[in-house]
Every structure is written in C-alpha cells, then in structure tokens.
C-alpha cells in the first residue's frame, strides 16, 4: 500500500465523517423547523384580540379565548418568583460565600438532588403540602410547585456566577476597610447581578412552560382569577385540554395557545440573552 493511497483513504474518512456530522446537524434541524413552522402556520390564524381577552366558551359555541389562562400563568409564575427566587438566589450566594465546609457540600449536594426531581413528583408534593391542608385546589399550590422547580437551578447558577467574580475585587474592598458583609452585598453580588437576573429569567421561562405539576394543584378555572386561594387556569393546561379533545376548533385553539406560549417563552429567553450581552459590554 503506497503512502499516497493510504492518505487518500484517511482523507476520505475525514471528509465522510465531517459530512456525517453535518447531516446529523441538519437532522436536528428538522424537528425544530417542523414544530416552529406548524405552531406558527396553524396557530397564527387564531390570533385575535378576542383570543387574548375572552374567557373560554362551552363546546360548540363560537369564539372564546385564553385570556384567563394567560393571566393565570402570569399569576402563578409571579407567586413562584416571590416564593422561590429569593430562596434560590440566597442559597446560591450562601454556597458561593460560605459553602466550602461539610455543611456547604451537603447543601450543594441536596440542591443537585432537587434539580433532578421530575416535575410530576413535585406536583404530588405540592398537593400534599398545600392542597390537602387548605382543603381545595389553588393558584398558591400551583405557584409553590413551580417555586420548588425553580429553586435548585437558580441556586446552582447563582453560585457559579458569584464564584466567577474575581477574588481581587473582594480583597481590594476589604483592604479599603469595608466590612465583609458589605463587600459581599455591594461589591461581589452587585457585579454578579446581571448574570443572576439572567438565570432568574431562564428559570421563569421554564416555569411558564410547565404543565404536569399544575394539573392537580391549580386544577383549572373557567373564569378570571387573581385569588391565590382559588383554582386557576393556565396556558399549558389549556393547551393540553384542547389538544386531547376531539373537537377540531379546540385543536385550532391548542395551536394558537401554543404560539402564545412560545412567544412568551421566547421573549423571556431573548431578554436574558440581551442582558448577558449588555452586561459583558459594560463590564469593567
């Protein structure tokens, strides 16, 4: 075998494998384009002012919308933010600042465990913790379930971000006579804040797309609701109910509601990306 043909063979393998990887890349594109194309093309037709502002109508009646579901999602995600973000961010700061001992390692390990809990299991827990004692389904129970889902990811990302802040900043601040706690708050965390907000936005985007834990915590509601003690509609549960129904007009509504959900999640992701970019630009 001459050196030349062996090299040709190796080159061919190289080209072939590169080509295969490119094919795989295209393959991954197919479902993405399929989903996005279908949601947009099937869902856009149903977009109207009425869709956003009206309540759902009973089967067989024309019109109606997901106004209450949209408000319900925003409401429960809001509750989740209030209940979960301070705890998540705080725990992340704790792990970054004080988390090097055995207790810190335990907390870190437990946060890792929590991040792997399937959302349906969190739903069971929220049912036992909130729905049973309260005696009925509620937006609060849904919000608590979402909060439990948000805490671990926010904590871990916050810890990483705070640790990334250069040690020299802390040393400089301490050298100037600033007490440790003020250094942590006003110097270290302030620097990491942009990243922390990004992490929170991404956690919110994920919470907005959750369905399983809401099914038996917040149940559903045909009407407008901003009472945390009452059951609440949500965008994701609405999509699910419309999708598994046999009615064609409800199927159309499922696509339109999916479009709305994708827009909401998309906006949150874009906002977090924008913040990252401006933070990197403005970093000193």
């Amino acid at each position, binding site marked *: 075998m001459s050196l030349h043909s062996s090299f040709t063979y190796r080159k061919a393998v190289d080209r072939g494998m590169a080509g295969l990887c490119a094919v795989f890349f295209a393959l991954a594109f197919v479902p993405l384009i399929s*989903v996005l194309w279908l949601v947009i093309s099937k869902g856009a037709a149903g977009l109207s002012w009425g869709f956003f502002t009206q309540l759902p109508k009973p089967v067989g009646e024309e019109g109606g919308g997901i106004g209450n579901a949209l408000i319900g999602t925003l409401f429960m995600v809001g509750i989740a933010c209030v209940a979960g973000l301070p705890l998540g961010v*705080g725990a992340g*700061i704790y792990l970054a600042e004080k988390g090097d001992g055995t207790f810190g390692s335990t907390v870190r390990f*437990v946060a890792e*465990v929590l991040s792997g809990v399937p959302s349906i299991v969190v739903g069971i827990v929220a049912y036992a913790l909130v729905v049973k004692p309260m005696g009925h389904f509620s937006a609060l129970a849904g919000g608590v379930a979402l909060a439990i889902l948000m805490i671990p990811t926010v904590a871990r990302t916050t810890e990483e971000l705070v640790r990334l802040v250069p040690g020299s900043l802390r040393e400089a601040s301490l050298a100037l006579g600033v007490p440790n*706690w003020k250094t942590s708050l006003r110097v270290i965390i302030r620097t990491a804040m942009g990243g922390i907000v990004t992490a929170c936005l991404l956690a919110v985007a994920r919470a907005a797309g959750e369905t399983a834990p809401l*099914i*038996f915590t917040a149940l559903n509601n045909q009407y407008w609701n901003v009472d945390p003690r009452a059951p609440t509609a949500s965008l994701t549960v609405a999509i699910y109910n419309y999708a598994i129904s046999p009615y064609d007009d409800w199927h159309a509504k499922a696509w339109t509601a*999916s479009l709305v959900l994708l827009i909401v999640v998309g906006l949150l992701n874009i906002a977090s990306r924008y913040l990252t970019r401006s933070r990197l630009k403005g970093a000193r």
Partner: protein
Amino acid sequence: MAEAAGNLAVEAAEENRPGPGNVGDRVFNGTLWALGVMVLVVAGLIVLNLALVARPLAKEHSLWGFITSSEWNPVDDRYGALPFLYGTLVTSALSILMAVPVAIGLALFITQFAPAKLGRVLTIPVELLAAIPSVVYGLWGLFIVVPWLRESIQPWLGRHFGFLPLFQGPPIGLGFLAAGAILAVMILPTVVSVSVEVMKTTPEANREAALALGATKWEAVMLAVIPYSRAGILGAVLLGLGRALGETMAVTMVIGNSPRISASLFAAGYSLPAVIANEFAEAVSDVHIGALAGLGLILFATTFLLNAGARILVTAVQKGPSRISG
C-alpha cells in the same frame, strides 16, 4: 468600581469597625446560613411527603412484590409497578438510541468541524429546541408524528422487518415508538450542550499535537478529543436519560395509556409519570394514592442516581488530568 468601593470605605470608617464579630457580618452570615438550611428543609419535605403518602401501599404490598407485579387493579387495590417501569425503560432507551448518535455528531460538528465563529451560532437551534415546552412537543407529536408513524413509518417497518417481534402488530401510531421518538427530540439539546461543554475542555495541546503528527481532523478527534471526553459524554447521556425518565406531558399524550407489557414497539404502553398525571386527581383509596406516590418515589430515586452519577462524570472530566490515548 474603585469609586464605589471608595465610597463604601468612607461609610465603613464612619459607621462600623470592620472585622469579624460586628453585627452586620453576623446578621449577614446568619441569613445566608438560614437560606442554606431552607434548601435542606425543602428537600426533606419532598422526600418525607412522598414517603408519607406512599405508606398505605406498604401495608399490603412488599417492595419486591410491588416492583415485579404487572397487575394494576384499582377495583381490588392490587398494584404493581412493572408495566410502568417497562414503559419508562423502553421509551427512554429508544430515545437514547435515537438521540445520542445525532447529539455526538452534532457536538463534534459544532466544536471540531465548523469554523469557530459559526460554532457559536450553531448552538442557537439547540437552545431553541431546549426552550420549547413539553406540552407543545406533545401537541406536535399527537397531530404530526403519530399520523406520520401510523401511515408511513410503521407500515414500512412492518413490511420489511415484521419478522422481528419489535415491529409486529397493527400500526396505530400511538405507543412506545411515538413516545420514544418525541423523547429523542426533547433530550437532544441536553446531551448536545453538555457534550459541547465537555469537548471544549479538551486541552488544545492534545489536539494540536495529533494534527502536528499528520492526523486528519477526524483522526485528531478520535485520538485526542473522544478519549479525553469519553466520561463526560457518558455523563451527558446520563443527564439526557434522566430527563427522558421524568418527562410527563409529551409522553402521556402519545403513548396510548395502556398498562400492558408488550414486545412490540407499535403497541400502546404507559410510563411512570404518565400514570401519575392521569390517575392522581381521582385515586380514591389510600392504597391507590399510595401506589402512585410509590411510583413517584421510584422515579425520584432513579433520576437522583442518574443525576448524581452524571455530575460526578462531568466534573471529573472538567477537572481531571489529560490523556492522549485511552
């Protein structure tokens, strides 16, 4: 930045004496510690509640009996986890088989074969895939993938490979195959992004050494990148598997909701999260609820082990020593 610190310093000199033991530090540290404890409390509440809810099950069923029985009988309150374990296993295995080769190929393309600037852009579609909510995948699966399977793929598979028990039975679209396919799409972003991270940590020196010795790009990958990142890629696969196990909505919309064990991929089945989602709101007897919570505990334990294992592998690669050959 220096200005801000300077202001703080002036404040500090006027207000507090710096150093351990001052009130500010104690309050701050105390609050942080309390937040750390809260995380433990939340985790404890989860495990405790699951165990409490599952307790009535233990009165009539042994652990081994529960795991190995395939009877799901709410009328007589006899429950077995086997059909759901089977369904979860089959759909997850299917999704790994379909997604991992594509994911590794994709990760290699992004990190090795594409120009560096393009590589950053190429991660955008992957992130988009990850951001799509589960119920939207379920909707897409129900109205696009299931009919496609029922009308094109399953008949074709039945005609050409019908001698295998895997591809026997009437093509109904819904079932293990549909769930596995949609799960593959859903876990792809997870496996890709972790693999990309891991591959990026391969020391450039290793790759350049291989190239300097006359290797083609592909050979450099096989010699330098893959052996180094092998453990990390395994970690990525485990993370993807963990995600597949816990996925609820998309699976419950296309798997057929039938607690039966069947050799055929065309058959309808059930998964652990799907049965909990469908039956929890209406399980009346404490034993039924306990059985569902028991399934939740099994799910929790499995995903925990997978995630712990994955984390160990991924961090080991990111911190460990480098080797050229494996």
